[in-house]
């Protein structure tokens, strides 16, 4: 399944905002090349997982303008705006499963990177 570019960009923005910037020697998810991850995800992830992430992207895309009181696309949000959107999602029970799924996807993407694994296993966290 190949996503339209804007949908892919919003999906990637959501995943990167979910786990933005650990401290210490660990790199930011935003600085990692996620292209190999998305290729594997789109080709091999079970349909319900792909559909779940699409649903999360759609839900956050709908929530962001409401939480920020202005029309805005997910891939244009600043870090502080993401925190506002995440805080708003915590008030909505329907978002709990979507946030959990997004956390799983973000962590899979982040720890797929060999350098991240090496740093953590060597005890290089903050």
């Amino acid at each position, binding site marked *: 399944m190949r996503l339209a570019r804007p949908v892919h960009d919003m999906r990637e923005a959501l995943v990167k905002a979910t786990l933005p910037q*650990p401290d210490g020697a660990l790199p930011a998810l935003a600085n990692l090349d996620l292209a190999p991850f998305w290729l594997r995800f789109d080709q091999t992830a*079970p349909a319900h997982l792909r559909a779940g992430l699409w649903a999360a992207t759609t839900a956050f895309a709908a929530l962001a303008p409401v939480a920020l009181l202005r029309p805005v696309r997910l891939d244009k949000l600043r870090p502080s705006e993401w925190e506002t959107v995440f805080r708003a999602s915590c008030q909505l029970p329907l978002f709990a499963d979507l946030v959990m799924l997004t956390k799983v996807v973000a962590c899979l993407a982040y720890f797929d990177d060999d350098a991240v694994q090496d740093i953590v296993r060597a005890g290089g966290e903050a």
Partner: protein
Amino acid sequence: MTHIDGSTLPGDHRLRCEVVVVGSGPAGSSIAQRLAAAGVDVVVLEAGPLLEPGQFPRSALKSMSTQYRDWGASVVLGRAPMPYVQGRMVGGGSPINGAICWRMPQDVWREWIDGDPALEQALPWAQLESATDAIETRLGVAPTDAAIAGRKNELMAQGAEALGLEHRPIRRNVVGCEGLGRCLEGCPKGRKRSVDRTLLEDARAHGARLMSQVDVTRVVLGKRGLRATGVEARAKSGARVTVEASRAVVLAASAIQSPVLLLRSGLGQGPVGQHFSCHPGVSMAARFAEPVRMWQGATQGHEVIGLRREGLKFEVLGFGLAVLASRLPGVGAELSRGVSELQHWLDWGVAVRAESEGRVRSVAGRPVVTFTPNARDVRLFRRGLRVLGEMMLAAGAESLHPGVRGFDAEVRDVDTLARLEQDGPENPAAFTSAITHMFGTCRMGSDPKRSVVRPDFRHHAAESLYVADSSVFPTNLGVNPQIAIMAMASLCAKNLLKESAS
């Protein structure tokens, strides 16, 4: 040793043998070993790939996408949708499980006999014990070595000791373990004596042929009456595979896949797919002031067994980094802070011997599983989380994160844990849970209306068809089942040899 890789089969393929075994996990490998050693011409079919330890990936993502069915995220439907985990490689779940070994509990076996006395003759306790002894010897089963246990396992021992709960190092099928904590992605050093490296290897040494990356689509029935004569399959390359079996077809494809295969083959007699039983588990994340480095030490090296008769068994968990991180509280900046101090976090889990039953159906040829924990099971979720939390606090945890919706996100004292047990949610959907062990969907028994296979593992309706995996278990076990599955399959092989000789 013959191995045919279904991903590279150029054209349609036909094989002839005496017995075809569908599935190469603990059941399939055990039965193949015993039959091949007796001189039977065996073909073993496996849907997943044949992987060597040097090919096991380090990342959870690559592991889930190559070694697990549906990324280990197949979902049980019901009031509380939850993932269930199945391996999909040669060896089934054995190369990628926590290596936990339990003999069949005699009290569970007694429940089976009390429920259907005809089982006693087919499953004599002495023969089960004897088969188990042989399997444990071949797999090198022994208690976890304290030298490689790691801090997460030591802490569970401390917590259980403080609470006066019976606990012990987990008995595992590993030899020379270095405590790399990578059992769930497959041991990169090949130190786990999984069935692909033991029983299946023995079978292949005796001439059994292995075909990987082939999905069996149906059991072929003979023209005269209901007699299984082989199977049809589709290789990953797209080639059609036909296996003709002159003596027997054995299904050992799991409690999910075996009933679906029967249903797809038009063998819907008896309660096939019904009585799905399992061990749903819940887990607790905890933060310790000291670095505990959950990824170091034996993946799952310690267990608390003092409440097994209540239906609760506690284990250290061995998640990879990605899964551990995804269980941390918060999202965005808060999750980042948690990941920054990942070495202070660990997860322990409790498996519940669920009373509730579900069902496996075949929808468009694919399994659809429904299951909802009942009120008693949910009460055990709450009790299990309370005990987990009390052990963690006793071991020095600063804060606990039970992951229960509608309850405190963070817990720091035993009074709150008591409140979780007494007044926590009754809705199973409130709990972060997952299923690992599944049983009962082709259960054995003497009454063809209430069972799918006979006490000697033969299908009630179709001749020469056997089911040998945990789907035949009349109930769940309350403990990790891989050794019991192998022992039962060994008895199935013995019966098959006796039956087909006569």
